[in-house]
């Protein structure tokens, strides 16, 4: 008989649930004129939750159904930090007239997706994993459609939920095949039952496609651009870093742990997917003039780079993957932050031409954007250079020379389109640039943290060291 008190060991999940409930109660009972306390409360509570769970530990519960590795707890902390940053950035948008009355919902929905991701990364059983996945997906659709009176946002929400459900269906079908052939859904036990039979390969493909939807890998990326463009910018930011980070980590653990006997099959598949993802996303990104769409394609290609670490399939790869996610969170949130600030200030300007001559009027925002874009492109001395280098190194170490080379050539293409934005901001003259304005304080704080991350994460080697040590355990 299972000991029910075991549930108390799921510190991270429990405390996050507590935060969630507190926020829910606050949302219910706070009088209307006190509602501006919601955002600081959300940030403070999350910070407390983060600090309480900072220490990485290994927890196995319910006969292996719940298995939180130290690496997973580090990732949870990282995701939480990212979420706090998104909360800070969302502030201006949530104060607007049409969203003010429902800002509590934003926090609640976001926290529940975060909870889902927690379960995803620490699942030890496919059913728990699936629950986590769904919990992370369904509220996300509401978030995407948050500005429901805007056609774009509603459309994006519909697209997102349809493709998400479709992918969940495929995923579930894949799991059922695994259960049928291996006789179990515990991660621990499945490898013993895997023989590489055609049905299991099909199961692998289905499982993989399900997650590839979340990660928006080519050819499962078609929903991404529309969704990012239509969704409120803060939600796009959240979607692009947090949910992608969780999905990438989960994919890697499952491929390494559960599908270890079928490494040959999945690595072959992954090679093709990576090349397709990076190349196609990069080529499409060149043509985008809407920055949110542009960032959608950019993040698809970044997902391709993250997959390189998965491909490596080694502890070194795991460390590089998490490191890449951290750096990516800092850089991508900085870009989205700037886009968000300008969009809110100008009531919806997100075209590249709107950024022409931005340096003259808003030098600080421009610098933040430039640094972040350079980091995304992998230019030293910014953190993105290090994370890219380590990912390449991991993949190279596992012998994928050609793939690394193709990815490298693609970084040149990506540099081109990142530079296009830099060019717009610095070089292209403009008669009517976006006027000078002061960004809101929460946004400033979040941008400051991001920029610090971009600088510090690379120069200080401690973080990578920690990840590496954890991965080696």
């Amino acid at each position, binding site marked *: 008989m299972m000991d029910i008190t075991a549930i108390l060991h799921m510190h991270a999940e429990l405390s996050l649930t507590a935060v969630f409930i507190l926020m829910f109660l606050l949302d219910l009972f706070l009088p209307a004129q006190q509602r501006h306390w919601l955002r600081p409360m959300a940030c403070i509570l999350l910070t407390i939750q983060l600090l309480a769970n900072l220490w990485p530990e290994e927890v196995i519960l319910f006969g292996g159904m719940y298995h939180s590795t130290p690496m997973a707890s580090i990732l949870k902390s990282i995701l939480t930090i990212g979420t706090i940053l998104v909360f800070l950035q969302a502030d201006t948008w949530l104060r607007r007239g049409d969203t003010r009355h429902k800002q509590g919902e934003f926090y609640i929905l976001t926290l529940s997706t975060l909870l889902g991701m927690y379960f995803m990364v620490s699942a030890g059983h496919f059913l728990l994993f699936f629950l986590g996945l769904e919990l992370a997906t369904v509220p996300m659709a509401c978030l995407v459609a948050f500005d429901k009176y805007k056609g774009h946002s509603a459309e994006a929400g519909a697209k997102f939920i349809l493709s998400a459900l479709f992918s969940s269906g495929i995923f579930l079908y894949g799991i059922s095949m695994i259960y049928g052939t291996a006789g179990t859904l515990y991660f621990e036990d499945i490898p013993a039952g895997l023989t590489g039979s055609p049905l299991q390969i099909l199961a692998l493909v289905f499982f993989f496609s399900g997650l590839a939807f979340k990660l928006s890998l080519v050819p499962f990326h078609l929903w991404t651009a529309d969704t990012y463009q239509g969704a409120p910018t803060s939600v796009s930011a959240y979607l692009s870093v947090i949910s992608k980070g969780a999905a990438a980590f989960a994919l890697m653990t499952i491929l390494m742990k559960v599908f270890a006997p079928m490494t040959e099959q999945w690595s072959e598949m992954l090679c093709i997917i990576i090349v397709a993802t990076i190349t196609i996303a990069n080529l499409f990104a060149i043509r985008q003039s809407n920055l949110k769409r542009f960032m959608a394609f950019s993040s698809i290609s970044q997902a391709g780079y993250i997959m390189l670490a998965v491909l490596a399939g080694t502890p070194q790869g795991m460390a590089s993957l998490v490191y890449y996610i951290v750096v990516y969170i800092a850089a991508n949130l900085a870009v989205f932050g700037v886009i968000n600030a300008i969009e809110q200030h100008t009531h919806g300007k997100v075209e590249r031409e709107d950024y022409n001559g931005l340096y003259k009027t808003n030098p600080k925002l421009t610098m933040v954007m430039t640094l972040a874009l350079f980091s995304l492109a992998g230019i*030293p001395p910014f953190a993105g250079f290090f994370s890219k280098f380590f990912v390449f190194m991991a993949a*190279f170490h596992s012998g994928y020379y050609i793939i690394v080379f193709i990815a490298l050539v693609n970084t*040149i293409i990506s540099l081109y389109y990142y530079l296009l934005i*830099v*060019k717009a901001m610095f070089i292209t003259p403009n008669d009517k640039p976006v006027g000078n304005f002061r960004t809101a304080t929460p946004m400033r704080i979040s941008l400051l943290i991001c920029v610090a991350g971009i600088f510090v994460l690379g120069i200080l080697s401690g973080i*990578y*060291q920690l990840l590496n040590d954890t991965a080696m355990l």
Partner: protein
Amino acid sequence: MLASLWASRSVNQVRGVMVAGASILLALSVYLTIDYIGLRQAGATGEMLFTASTVWYAPLHICYSVGVDGISVAMLLLSSIIVFTGTFASWKLQPLTKEYFLWFTLLSVGVFGFFISTDLFTMFMFYEVALIPMYLLIGVWGSGRKEYAAMKLTLMLMGGSAFLLIGILGIFYGAGGETMNLLEIAKLHIPHEMQRIFFPLIFLGFGVLGALFPFHTWSPDGHASAPTAVSMLHAGVLMKLGGYGCFRVAMYLMPEGAAMWGDVFLILTTISVVYGAFSAVVQTDLKYINAYSSVSHCGLVLFALLMMTRTSCTGAILQMLSHGLMTALFFALIGMIYGRTHTRDVRLMGGLMKIMPFLAVGYVIAGLANLGLPGLSGFVAEMTIFVGSFQNDDTFHRVCTLVTTTSIVITAVYILRVVGKILYGKVVNPEHLKLTDATWDERVAVICLIACVAGLGLAPFWMSDLISNSVEPIISQLLN
């Protein structure tokens, strides 16, 4: 220094900080050189001196390790001279002065870091640090088709660095994946097949920056569009990164690869030299002429390195120095002339000797150094290269050498043509008569560079000794 630049508000402060910083840098390099020679004479035998190493990313064996030998000392000296004079050459640069010098300084940081690194990772990192400021420097402060040129330059060089990165990973894992330190890898043996694959990658990667044919096309556009000081730094120092890297990384670490691929690249460099010179003949834009001339001279550097004799490699390093100095001088003068006449078209200028004698005399000296007049630096370098190259006694190398020597003649053609056309002859545009000669900041830059060019030409031996002692270990690695 970057920090103090951030802090400074007004234009004058920026200039002050920049001059102070550049002077300190120059003083430090001179001190380093003297110290280095002193230590060598005192009998220090290490391959590198002033080494220091800090572990950075332990799991990946990445260290931040630095050290210098004769070659890097020479390069550092060159870089600091050019940064110093470049500061003066961009004295009057107007819009966004502070940002300009910030990026300029970042560029120099990259260059200096590259020359002192002895760790593959940090070396590569500094290499890229040196590349990216170019985009903004050319894009924002350039002239002509600047956006196109900046993008082309950045993408091509970054393309080169993609080759490099994969090559570096190849070397690292080929040598056992235990160390990224150049000196330690040199002691290990990289498997034959690995060398065959990764040597050309590294050589091409650096070769792009060294304007190796057919990857030189970024150079004329880039140089022509860049602001003066950036052209100076770029042609004078950045292109040398290519040669230095080819020598230090590709040839030093993968001698077998060099033996296998040497002939192929030798043909390419020969084409570079001759083709660059011929292209310079037909250009009408002063900067384009000089840019193609740089392609030709930098090709000569790679050519001499591939000849793989001690003399030719010493010559190659001398050529880097000499070309760095004189091309910087050239670009500085062109920038100053352009600042007055607002044209760089050879056909629209004439008789400048009477109008601005100081600049014109400087131009003549630069030209003579370029075509290898004895007494100036170009002669010393080219002489050493050709003598060294001819020491190879097989037909292939000799034919290549002979073909390459024709470039001297072609160089004379385009240099003398330009000098004759714009400095002497009739004044083409009467407007030009109103123009003035150099101001004091420009004089500082020009005189400083001329002194160096002449100094290297008149007293080359201390420098060539310095270099050739350090070339020795690399050459012996190559010949084994």
